[in-house]
């Protein structure tokens, strides 16, 4: 076990320089290293727990509503959520809120330890107000797990149905004693040929339990195999650039995707005849045929290119109500195939940027993600978001709607810049398309003098050229005057 984990880590470091390569589990940073044999103090118990697993998309989405009770003598505010070491690298978007008061900001939650040798890893949730002894609180825990679904059989024919296998524990792996719990799974289809652990089956829903009195850390493995004849669209990397031009009043967005389909591979080779034949009635298929990007209303000048130029198979429908960019890859992307491309568009800056009434401050509000929106969902292993602010912007602050792994300030030098533009780079791992609806807020200061820097530089440059030309014109280079 240890050696194999170590191998994975080594591989990661070896490949980390490749931008589009697999960044499976780049170590999540940690502020506090806990000892190897750490056990969360048994100060809570889960009085009641309902776990919902949603398998309607190409990734696993879990919602756990749990009533926790402080069984300690003192008031407590630290709740631990355990994950298996091999799974924690794929967990993303973990968010814990007070179920009773969902308007309040989410509790602080972070990975507390990343020690690759420990079989169990923890998220630590800090409650905003400590829980008094024997008081109860209802938590709503949301997260999604990427790469947890495996096609079985792993290779299928072009027109075959695709089945996915999902293995999980019917008990929610908790660090505390659970009095009572129930697990529900929701599918997108009723075609579920294989499953274990005798659930209660109602149409597209499975229910396990209720289970009584589960001790901490206990698990019961179960698996389901269900039909999912849709592509499992996965971006190994998304680079998203948001560039602000305060002079031009323009917000330019460019996104570079490295997509792959994690569905079942083709058993044989791709057959165009068969593909063309089925195109007339477009049956469900595991191949990715197209992507729809609903952009902000008012977006314009979209482009869709890849490494070898413009892709002519895109369509942009824009009107007052919507601006949909419909993309079609050059070829259908079957399981195991890859497709990388680049899209970009412009938008009026006015609807995203606001000037603070006093001083030189500005507030920018942009969606964290604007990627494809599809029924089967799309997951991103790594998202690099760069917000390129105007040259000379200072005092940059941001508030991210989803957990950010790293943030970095740098300078981006482009069109006739002298200093370079202030750039905020945010890196997030294991993101899913739900982040589309969440906004990133960035504030910065942009003094007036910074705005006039470039016109003055260009003016000086052109004057220099003229002066030089004039000077050269005055030179006399003839050998002898006749």
């Amino acid at each position, binding site marked *: 076990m240890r050696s194999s984990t170590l191998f994975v880590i080594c591989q990661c470091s070896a490949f980390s320089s490749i931008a589009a390569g697999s960044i499976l589990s780049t170590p999540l940073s940690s502020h506090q290293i806990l000892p190897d044999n750490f056990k969360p103090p048994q100060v809570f118990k889960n009085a009641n727990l309902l776990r919902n697993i949603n398998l309607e998309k190409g990734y696993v989405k879990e919602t756990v509503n749990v009533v926790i009770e402080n069984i300690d003598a003192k008031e407590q505010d630290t709740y631990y959520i355990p994950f298996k070491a091999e799974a924690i690298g794929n967990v993303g978007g973990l968010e814990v809120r007070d179920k009773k008061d969902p308007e309040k900001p989410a509790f602080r939650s972070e990975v507390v330890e990343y020690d690759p040798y420990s079989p169990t890893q923890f998220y630590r949730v800090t409650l905003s107000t400590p829980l008094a002894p024997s008081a109860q609180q209802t938590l709503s825990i949301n997260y999604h797990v990427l790469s947890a679904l495996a096609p079985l059989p792993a290779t299928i024919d072009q027109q075959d149905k695709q089945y996915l296998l999902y293995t999980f524990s019917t008990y929610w792996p908790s660090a505390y004693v659970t009095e009572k719990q129930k697990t529900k799974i929701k599918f997108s289809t009723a075609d579920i040929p294989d499953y274990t652990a005798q659930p209660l089956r109602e149409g597209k829903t499975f229910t396990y339990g209720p289970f009584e009195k589960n001790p901490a850390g206990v698990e019961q493995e179960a698996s389901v195999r269900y039909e999912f004849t849709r592509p499992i669209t996965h971006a190994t990397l998304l680079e998203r650039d948001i560039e602000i031009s305060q002079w031009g009043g323009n917000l330019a967005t460019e996104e570079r995707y490295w997509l792959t389909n994690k569905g079942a591979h083709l058993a044989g*080779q791709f057959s*165009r005849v068969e593909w063309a034949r089925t195109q007339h009635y477009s049956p469900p298929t595991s191949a990715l045929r197209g992507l729809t990007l609903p952009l902000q209303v008012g977006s314009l000048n979209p482009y869709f290119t890849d*490494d070898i*130029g*413009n892709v*002519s198979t895109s369509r942009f429908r824009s009107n007052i109500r919507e601006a949909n960019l419909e993309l079609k890859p*050059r070829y259908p992307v079957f399981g195991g195939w*890859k497709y990388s491309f680049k899209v970009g568009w412009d938008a009026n800056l006015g609807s995203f940027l606001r000037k603070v009434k006093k001083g030189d401050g500005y507030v920018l509000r942009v969606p964290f993600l604007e990627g494809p929106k599809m029924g089967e969902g799309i997951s991103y292993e790594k998202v690099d978001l760069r917000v390129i602010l105007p040259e000379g912007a200072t005092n940059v602050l941001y508030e991210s709607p989803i957990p950010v792994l790293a943030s970095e300030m740098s300078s981006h030098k482009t069109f006739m810049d002298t200093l370079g533009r202030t750039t905020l780079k945010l890196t997030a791992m294991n993101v899913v398309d739900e982040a589309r609806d969440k906004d990133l807020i960035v504030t910065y200061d942009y003094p007036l003098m910074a705005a006039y820097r470039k016109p003055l530089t260009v003016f000086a440059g052109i004057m220099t050229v003229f002066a030089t030309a004039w000077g050269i014109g005055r030179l006399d280079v003839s050998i002898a005057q006749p």
Partner: protein
Amino acid sequence: MAVEVLEPFLKGDTGRNTRGLLRLIILCTIAAAAVASRLFSVIRTWHPLGRVTGGTLYPGLMVTSGIIYHVLRLLSMPVDIRNICVLLAPGFSGLTAFASYLITSEMTTSPSAGLLAAVFMGITPGYISRSVAGSYDNEAIAIFLLVFTFFLWIKSVKNGSAMWGALTALFYGYMVSAWGGYVFITNLLPLHTFVLICMGRYSPRLYVSYSTWFSLGTLASMQVPFVGFLPIRSSDHMSALGVFGLLQLVAFVEFIRQQVPNKQFQTLLRGLIFVVFVVSMGVLVLLTVSGVIAPWSGRFYSLWDTGYAKIHIPIIASVSEHQPTAWPAFFFDLNLMIWLFPAGVYMCFQHLKDEHVFVVIYAVLASYFAGVMVRLMLTLTPVVCIAAALAISSILDTYLVADNPIPTETQSNGQATGDSVKSATNMIKDSLRSTRNPVLGIYSYISKASVVGAVTTYLLLFVLHCTWVTSNAYSSPSVVLASKLPDGSQHIIDDYREAYYWLRQNTPDKAKIMSWWDYGYQIGGMADRPTLVDNNTWNNTHIATVGKAMSSREEVSYPILRQHDVDYVLVVFGGLLGYSGDDINKFLWMVRISEGIWPDEINERNYFTARGEYRVDDEATPTMRNSLMYKMSYYNYNALFPAGQAQDRVRGSKLPAEGPQLSTLEEAFTSENWIIRIYKVKDLDNVGRDHASAVAFDKGNKKKKTAKRRGARVLRVE
């Protein structure tokens, strides 16, 4: 009113400045138009058609784009190198227009001739064909260098200036680094010098400029690695050297003539000429025989004998732009200029100064070469533009004058306007004086208007023609095909890039792709995979190997594929769409080229039917139907049609009811319109069977086996 206001700007010193400014603006506009008319293709695709740096190329083009890239980077203008490559040719065409302005201005005093030449150069299809956006080719910068070098040469001959001569050499060196067509300059300048000497126009100016150019230029050209020592070893360059020697002799003789009395000089001259001729011929022959000087290259022969290439170097003949030019092409590429061209050349004879001699020689040579090879239309275009501009400008200078010519000594001085009858009678009266001192000029407004109107119409039609040709014929990139849907909207057929991108994304990095060499650069650039042969592989044998693999039976081809480590084979098939530039139509060249190396194994005759037809249907010969190319093109094609209805829309023929079977290859990818078909070469069979029997087994030829078993059972019962 307007005229009065403009008056001070057009007269005197201010007028000179105004006209200068006007000329500058016109030139800038021409340059902009020249760039703009090359952007048709960009609207459809952005990619330069895949040239990848090779080791045996002229470096000028890449160095130029690299320098532009780095200068822009220095000014912190982050322009993608790809965009520079795309726009390099249009940008340089603007410069070419400027260069032709300069060279034409040297020919004549008319101020409009230069501008006209610039316009012509800017928009003529003959040049656009090689400089549209995205045609990242040597010619893109070479034509500018060609014209500009000629300009500098003329300037230097006119002034006898070593500086201009050195500049000529500098740009000549640049030209050598950019295009193999530099040989044209290498031979044209000596020829010009030679003709001038023969015309008795030797002058110290000629001596200075030629000697400067030759010595510096030869040194400069030898700095290019691909050229190396060719300038002193190859026969192609010998004329320049010979003329250089001749020039020294002539200079020497001139010198002696000034020192020695006339009679002795005659004897001396004869003796000298004889000795020098014999010695130099002897040395030349000796060096050629001993191999120090390379014999004429094959391409050189093909310039004189158009049938040479087809017999000896099929690979050159197989390129469409190496074919002799069809007559309509001249009109297509040059339009009205082709009939103005002789007029312009004739006008050069009228003046026949040194620079006009140059234009005449250039015109004669380039016309011949343009007739031999389509590609060389490019070298003809500049001189046609110059000559046509000379002709048109002289017409316009004569007719487009508002004022009537003022006869020097006639009485009709004051009332000339409109009173042509009277002045005519006047002229008849004193006809004697008028013949002595004729008044040249056009008086009638009608004739002025009609001629000017006609010329304007021609020029407008020319613009129309150029725009049409450019947008329709020369701006369609070969990788993207555009067609119109019934509702008039544009439909783009992007099969090439679809398949190339599939290769790029979904095959191993090191996968070797075999295809005909035409697609080598495209695969290298767009699919980013190694290929067996590409557009720069002048290794004929290797190309012939690919040709052999394509034209042989599977059993013969498979070992070739294995030996060359081929993973994928790519063929272009236009049968579904009616795309005629496909591999089946190129197939005979593959056969011919491989027959050149393996005449025993490949025979072109076997691919034709008994009646000498090249067919793909039921009557196709067995050799044809068993060739790998045929099988790959039509494999599984039948499945698209109802039984027995398969149709090839390029060849316009019905295909055999049963399609070909492949056993050593399997279909890996076929693009949307079937233009590109990619096959994967199967690995050796696991159990050591040959592929044909393995395929037969997989298909379950149960008949044989069941028959055997039954037979056995019957025996047992008895």
